[in-house]
């Protein structure tokens, strides 16, 4: 690179020298002195001349004056000349000298002139180069940028090396604005000298890595222009482009989206194949219970590449853009990339565009027309939006008609036909004719209405307007052909009308019909032929041809009556001026009139002429347009435009997705947080495998802290607990009564509390005190006291057991745990791996996945520790113990690792209490921690998938200082399935895709029951609803307390007090549907037990059974 640059530099220097030499030689000639008189002359005579060269002479003088205002006036007039396309290139030398003027406007106008004429006056243009070169070094970024802009716009081949050098230097400029300009310059240089391609690709590659949103659009544009086939350059930048997309300026968005569409089609596998099975129930397979279905139907389920999903997710918000081009770009992206059932989300936005300007409507309608052929369902609900108004332009009317025809089906055809009836009467006859065609298409596509349409068309035959009648005849002909049943009345009717119809195509159609069905109208056909024989010479060619045809057919079927007529017509045809007609006549004569030469063909004449013909297929004109990418110029013209990039087919096997992984080692990174630099994201994977050893170490070191904090916090827990219980019960009452109201209510409250929050943000304690008062938000923060608080409070509640438990929890870091974890990892997705992580302090390991010997991690954890302590001291929630009789350690899962989150990390746990927002939601608490070096703003939840996912988001966290952490609570409606809830955690600058996957036990709520009730319910849930297994329990678990502790750790159920010693019962309900889940554990001899689960939700039962079995047998 360096070598390349230096050679380039010497090249540039060479070019510069030539430039200077020629400039000097020219400058000598360019200094005519201005006399005083001449100046006066110019001023006085300024207005007289405009167009003449004399006028230009005068402008020249003005330009050479010393007065700025005169020069400016001259330049303004020159610009006027340019705008009118008048020639003013003779002024070039005079203008160029002002290139270094101090006056900004003058300078800008000179630039305008220079760029316009430089190509014609190449030598003179070189005069200005040195000025720009100087400006390229200016400390002000805008001056650098504008110099590069003009320099690159001067289309003079000799300065290519100078431009190249300037571009290369600008590409590494500190200002993103200059870098953007360099991206634009790349295209200009490429169009000037395509040989520079290789060098330019290098620059593009470099700029693609740029993280600024300003640059992204322009460099992708350059990429599209210079090297659209170098898809490999995109790999590493793919995710970045997806994430930046929302913030890129609108024009750049269009270009990036189009490029990414092409990219995605080469890199991901088709999401469509499997859909074919599901297409009937459009509900899609991300819905709750489809998991099992999918498993049954398909051997190998399609899993969308996360990068593919990322693209779809990040483009979706852009459907709301005010820029119609952006909306269209997203729509085509979804059309070409999204699974079939997701495409329909673009419908609404496309229909919205129809409100825009006429030209926009036109293009959008074209695209909708293509889409509606393949996917009627998408636009059917919006059918009325395509109704034609009398004020629409004709091409818009025709397109709407096209779409309405495409949308027609059995259900809506009557409405559409009624609408068409109005259109047929339109004063715009071209449109009326198009409507008749459309009716014909509807009639062939939907057999139910064929007869109605036919009758309607026949009625139109008596219309006064000729074009309407002609069009009807043509369409009727086609329809009759598709329906060769008894339609002789219609043919007779048309024969009657024949004299009044003058449009050749219509006459020809009627003649053809006569001939084709001459046996059905044996009396009329010869008569028509007779009339035609009379007027043959004055007919149009197409009518003559059909007359010959008719004659031939009649000759074959009814030669007695028509023999002479036929011969007469054939004779007329023989001497016709048109050779097609002469040819046809000769051919027909040979074919039908037997003579010695004609031979075998003669015998088959009848079969040839009167063969039954296949019916024409009435197709949409947009049928074949889908070969082009939607939204493109080529699609609009239905012709491949210059520079059109073909959209490739999906690859059968996806190329290696790891090419898109980005290593973080990047020297030129301005905004990357220092933490992110230190470690590589790969440590993520390592982290899981290293888990076991670390856990032991972590728990050992953390144990003292946990006990100390718990003792401190437990005292306050009692009072606050009772408060929050009241609040929460009130709140939940409200929500259950009217969920709609509650959400709007919370909006209001949040908007009010916001300013307050903002002020207090800095002092965390204050915030929390505050938030206690505001109803909806309060719980989130109270419970948010962090995992430390939680355990301590739970232990305080479960009075007698607490001590022993804590000991068992902390002191004996469980030796059997590693094997257990492995099995879990095998059977469940990766989030589950973390399930077994113990409470509170062990979490610190999450923050420092590096081995404990690393100095950095220890610093981290200690700072965090103090943070957590602070939190736990200030307020402790105990809502949980009161509302839920269950206990058991709360497990914390990682939501966003600080590596992936650029220093922003999040963990979550299930507080196991009824969700306040909606009873069907599972409450989730998320601890957001900022371990980066800058404060994060506007932390909130972004897009979620599946889109139907019902999440109650936490209120936007306005600001999170470095090192601080905050706990927020949210509610997720998992609808009783363990499908992960995917959503985006967004900060002001970034978005991180995260997912929460609940263990099955977290989808339950404890339910209090007496023993008899339990037995009653259990009896109702026998047979199919019962799942049982016999298990062997670990020896440590045989005590009753330990068993219930294990069960409660796995599932959020309530203990049913039992009189029998060998029976333990637990009861719960699923959160979403409220189905009962009853767990019975019957102890047998030798530490075996029979575990029975009764519930309607058999899938849940088997999952729960598996989890319980593991917990009981292995801990």
């Amino acid at each position: 690179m360096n070598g390349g640059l230096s050679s380039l530099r010497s090249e540039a220097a060479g070019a510069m020298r030539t430039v200077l030499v020629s400039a000097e030689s020219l400058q000598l000639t360019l200094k005519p002195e201005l006399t005083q008189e001449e100046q006066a002359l110019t001023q006085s005579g300024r207005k007289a001349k405009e167009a003449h060269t004399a006028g230009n002479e005068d402008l020249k003088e003005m330009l050479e004056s010393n007065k700025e205002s005169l020069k400016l006036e001259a330049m303004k007039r020159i610009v006027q000349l340019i705008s009118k396309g008048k020639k003013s290139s003779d002024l070039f030398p005079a203008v160029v000298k002002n290139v270094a003027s101090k006056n900004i406007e003058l300078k800008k106008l000179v630039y305008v002139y220079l760029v316009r004429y430089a190509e014609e006056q190449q030598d003179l243009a070189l005069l200005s180069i040195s000025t720009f070169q100087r400006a390229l070094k200016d400390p002000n970024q805008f001056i650098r940028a504008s110099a590069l802009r003009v320099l690159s716009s001067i289309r003079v081949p000799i300065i290519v090396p100078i431009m190249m050098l300037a571009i290369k230097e600008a590409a590494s400029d500190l200002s993103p604005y200059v870098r953007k300009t360099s991206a634009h310059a790349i295209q200009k240089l490429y169009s000037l000298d395509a040989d520079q391609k290789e060098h330019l690709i290098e620059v593009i590659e470099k700029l693609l890595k740029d993280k600024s949103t300003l640059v992204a659009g322009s460099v992708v544009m350059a990429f599209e222009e210079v090297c659209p086939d170098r898809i490999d350059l995109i790999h590493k930048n793919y995710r970045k482009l997806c994430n930046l997309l929302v913030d890129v300026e609108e024009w750049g968005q269009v270009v990036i989206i189009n490029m990414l569409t092409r990219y995605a089609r080469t890199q991901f596998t088709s999401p469509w194949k499997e859909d074919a099975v599901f297409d009937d129930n459009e509900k899609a397979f991300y819905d709750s219970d489809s998991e099992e279905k999918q498993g049954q139907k398909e051997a190998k389920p399609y899993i969308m590449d996360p990068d593919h999903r990322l693209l779809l997710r990040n483009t979706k918000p852009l459907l709301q853009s005010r820029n119609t081009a952006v909306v269209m770009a997203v729509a085509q992206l979804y059309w070409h990339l999204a699974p079939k059932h997701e495409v329909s989300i673009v419908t609404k936005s496309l229909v919205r565009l129809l409100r825009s300007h006429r030209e926009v409507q036109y293009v959008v309608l074209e695209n909708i027309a293509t889409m509606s052929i393949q996917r009627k369902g998408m636009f059917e609900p919006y059918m009325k939006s395509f109704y034609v108004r009398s004020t629409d332009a004709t091409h818009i009317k025709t397109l709407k008609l096209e779409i309405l025809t495409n949308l027609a089906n059995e259900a809506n055809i009557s409405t559409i036909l009624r609408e068409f009836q109005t259109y047929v009467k339109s004063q715009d006859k071209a449109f009326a004719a198009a409507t008749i065609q459309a009716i014909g298409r509807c009639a062939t596509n939907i057999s139910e209405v064929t007869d109605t349409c036919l009758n309607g068309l026949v009625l139109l035959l008596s219309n006064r307007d000729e074009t309407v009648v002609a069009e009807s005849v043509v369409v009727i002909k086609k329809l009759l052909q598709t329906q060769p049943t008894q339609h002789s009345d219609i043919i007779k009717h048309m024969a009657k009308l024949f004299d009044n119809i003058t449009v050749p195509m219509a006459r020809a159609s009627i003649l053809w019909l006569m001939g084709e069905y001459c046996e059905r109208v044996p009396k009329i056909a010869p008569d028509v032929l007779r009339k035609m024989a009379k007027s043959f010479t004055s007919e149009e060619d197409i009518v003559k041809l059909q007359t010959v045809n008719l004659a031939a057919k009649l000759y074959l079927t009814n030669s007695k009556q028509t023999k002479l007529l036929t011969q007469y017509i054939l004779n007329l045809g023989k001497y016709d001026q048109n050779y097609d007609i002469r040819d046809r006549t000769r051919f027909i004569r040979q074919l039908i009139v037997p003579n010695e030469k004609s031979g075998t063909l003669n015998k088959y004449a009848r079969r040839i002429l009167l063969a039954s013909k296949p019916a024409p297929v009435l197709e949409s004109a947009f049928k074949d347009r889908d070969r082009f990418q939607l939204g493109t110029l080529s699609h609009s013209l239905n012709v491949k435009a210059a520079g059109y990039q073909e959209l490739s087919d999906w690859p059968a096997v996806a190329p290696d997705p790891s090419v898109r992984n980005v290593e973080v080692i990047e020297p030129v990174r301005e905004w990357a947080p220092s933490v992110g630099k230190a470690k590589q994201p790969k440590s993520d994977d390592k982290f899981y495998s290293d888990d076991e050893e670390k856990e032991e170490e972590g728990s050992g070191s953390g144990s003292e802290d946990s006990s100390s904090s718990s003792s401190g916090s437990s005292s306050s827990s009692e009072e606050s607990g009772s408060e929050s219980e009241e609040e929460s019960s009130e709140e939940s009452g409200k929500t259950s009564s009217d969920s709609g109201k509650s959400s709007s209510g919370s909006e209001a409250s949040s908007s009010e509390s916001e300013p307050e929050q903002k002020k207090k943000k800095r002092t965390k304690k204050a915030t929390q005190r505050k938030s206690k008062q505001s109803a909806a938000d309060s719980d989130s923060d109270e419970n948010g006291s962090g995992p430390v608080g939680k355990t301590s409070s739970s232990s305080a509640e479960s009075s007698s057991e607490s001590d022993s438990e804590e000991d068992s929890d902390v002191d004996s870091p469980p030796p059997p745990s590693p094997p257990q974890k492995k099995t879990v990892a095998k059977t469940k997705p990766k989030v589950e791996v973390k399930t077994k992580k113990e409470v509170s302090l062990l979490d610190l390991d999450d923050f420092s996945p590096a081995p404990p010997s690393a100095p950095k991690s220890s610093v981290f954890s200690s700072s965090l520790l103090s943070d957590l302590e602070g939190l736990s001291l200030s307020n402790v929630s105990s809502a949980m113990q009161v509302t839920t009789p269950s206990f058991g350690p709360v497990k914390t899962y990682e939501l966003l690792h600080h590596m992936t989150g650029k220093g922003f990390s999040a963990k979550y746990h299930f507080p196991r209490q009824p969700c306040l927002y909606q009873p069907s939601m599972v409450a989730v608490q998320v601890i957001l921690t900022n371990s980066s070096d800058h404060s994060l703003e506007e932390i909130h939840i972004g897009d979620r998938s599946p889109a139907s996912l019902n999440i109650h988001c936490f209120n936007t966290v306005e600001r999170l200082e470095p090192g601080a952490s905050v706990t927020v609570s949210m509610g997720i409606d998992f609808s009783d399935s363990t499908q992960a809830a995917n959503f985006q955690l967004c900060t002001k600058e970034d978005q991180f895709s995260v997912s929460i996957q609940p263990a099955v036990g977290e989808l339950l709520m404890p339910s209090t029951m007496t023993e008899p009730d339990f037995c009653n319910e259990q009896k109702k849930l026998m047979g199919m609803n019962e799942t049982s297994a016999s298990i062997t329990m670990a020896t440590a678990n045989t005590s009753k307390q330990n068993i219930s502790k294990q069960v409660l750790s796995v599932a959020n159920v309530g203990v049913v007090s039992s009189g029998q010693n060998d029976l333990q019962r637990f009861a719960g309900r699923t959160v979403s549907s409220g189905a009962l889940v009853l767990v019975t554990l019957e102890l047998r001899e030798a530490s075996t037990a029979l575990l029975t689960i009764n519930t309607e939700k058999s899938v849940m039962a088997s999952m729960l059974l598996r989890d319980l079995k593991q917990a009981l047998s292995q801990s």
Partner: protein
Amino acid sequence: MIHSLFLINASGDIFLEKHWKSVVSRSVCDYFFEAQERATEPENVPPVIPTPHHYLISVLRHRIYFVAVIQSEVPPLFVIEFLHRVVDTFQDYFGVCTEAAIKDNVVVVYELLEEMLDNGFPLATESNILKELIKPPTILRTMVNTITGSTNVGEQLPTGQLSVVPWRRTGVKYTNNEAYFDVVEEIDAIIDKSGSTITAEIQGVIDACVKLTGMPDLTLSFMNPRLLDDVSFHPCVRFKRWEAERILSFIPPDGNFRLLSYHVSSQNLVAIPVYVKHNITFREGSSQGRFDLTLGPKQTMGKAVESVLVSSQLPRGVLNANLNPSQGTYTFDPVTKLLTWDVGKINPQKLPSLKGTMNLQAGASKPDENPTINIQFKIQQMAISGLKVNRLDMYGEKYKPFKGIKYMTKAGKFQVRT
């Protein structure tokens, strides 16, 4: 992308040309003129026209064709959207976008076009940035400029282009801080012969005029955000916040801008505020036709229907019309056959009507179709969908702004088939 731009007036003269790459000869417009000739109406010129070496993409606004010359594949909407943005900018700068205004300000136009595109790719299209670069010409400024010789090109550099909020100028100052929001809803409807609604929908916009000092951060919330079925935002609106809370949170651009356009969900029944009783008949054989039209208010929630304007394209056979309006004035253009009736305000006590006869061409047959009637009207202080702004709050600045919200309902494409 965009190679060149030609501006063509209604009589087919190219009165301005601008090239961003190599110069494209004017003769390329001949293909455009050809297409124009083929089209019967000015609106019927196809927006995309292929020529052997170039593609012409045009928009028609204010009776001026803006014809962009393209050389290779580009999304047509990209160009169309940009051209409309150009027109909007001209309108913003000169108040009107007419041939005369463009010719008078040709230097400013050129400077604007130069800034808006670089090598055919849009560079700065935000009105606020452009105004920092090039000051809009006002009478005062032109006078000052001629006297002092100063220019209308901004002296300071366009820092807005670099900021996180490119749509807002820096250092805005006002003595009166005010923020006005207009909620304007339009009813698009087709009413059939018998008076039943075939299709009706409501589209709305919120236009804002914000003159606030500094960097205010506004939030606007609605009483009933659920009404909004489909929305599109000015880039300043924080989308995530809307998704989560249905609150519009934004740092506004300075001056006039369109904050939001929306579509009201089609499930809601649309209240049609006017009804039309009509009786337009042509009899076979007679050269006379009857015309009888009465308007009345309906479901207006007590608000007056104002600025009512009825227009109708009468059949070609109609020679002239002899009508008698009970209020307002009517005109009939015998060339275009366009009947317009400026009704004014509808008085519910005395319904306005237009009655009389039409004379048909002698011997001409009875027209097939009765004319459709287009109606325009305005209803002040009401958003027909029932949308209500709940509150507007400002953060980030200390002063108390003056806030105002206005509602209005208008007829969009409101047609009555007869």
